[in-house]
């Protein structure tokens, strides 16, 4: 069965407190060199063969992402 990945990230203007918390935590772990982090969501979908691109884009835009505050990408594996 085909697998589709949808990645959702907060829009660039939108505050991402989670990403910021990670950036601040890394040096305390002795892990350096990370300038910025944005945290989003990652969905792995198992879909039937006949699911078309339009349906996938609706799934992403209407349910998986909140278009008011998030951007998303869809990719077939």
């Amino acid at each position, binding site marked *: 069965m085909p697998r589709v990945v949808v990645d959702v990230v907060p829009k660039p203007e939108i505050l991402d407190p*989670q990403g910021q*918390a990670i950036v601040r935590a890394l040096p305390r772990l002795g892990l350096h060199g990370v300038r910025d982090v944005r945290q989003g969501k990652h969905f792995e979908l198992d879909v039937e063969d006949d699911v078309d691109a339009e349906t996938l884009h609706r799934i992403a835009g209407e349910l998986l992402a909140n278009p008011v505050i998030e951007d998303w990408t869809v990719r077939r594996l």
Partner: protein
Amino acid sequence: MSAVCRIGVITFPGTLDDVDAARAVRRAGAQPVPLWHADDDLHGVDAVVVPGGFSYGDYLRAGAIAAHQPVLRAVLDAARRGTLVLGICNGFQILCEAGLLPGALVRNAGLHFVCRDQRLRVENPATAWTGRYAPGADIVVPLKSIEGRYVADASTLSELEGDGRVVFRYLDGNPNGAMHDIAGIASADGRVLGLMPHPEHAIDPLTGPSTDGLDLFHSAVDTVLGSVRG
């Protein structure tokens, strides 16, 4: 002068129930010692409480960032030397993230935050933190969490069950989907305990559903003073 039990209460940025934990410690006749997340020593306390809340906002994963703070390294060292450690809710999550207790706590199966007066069974009254409870005691303690579902792999679970390390179990319906209805577990030596419900909110009928939580703190005081005397 009789011996005083000193119990440290850790505050991370975002810790919420430290005041309550300190109050419970005091009610149990012990002396609460405030510990700050950036401290790297525990000021010689006899026991440590890692209280509830949302340390670092619980961003990323509940307890993930707190588990890497300096004070936690001190807690790990102390636990190795036998100091009593109690993790309540976020504290439990932190202890699991830090590897002091096995397994993990993940998003409630119902996906909502759940705040309710929860019935629990005390499965093991033989730990350092549960000596005052009768075996199989049925207690009511508030539960309030959104990442409270205990999960672990099959071999960890059978080890926990086999060694009596499942200390508290949910009654009246599992509120979050925790495996084996697990509400709290202990380390192999019974000196480190983690649980999702909040015993520190059940110490006074005026502000909680019962006084059932107080015995947890009394038990620790018994253990500490007993071993001092013994």
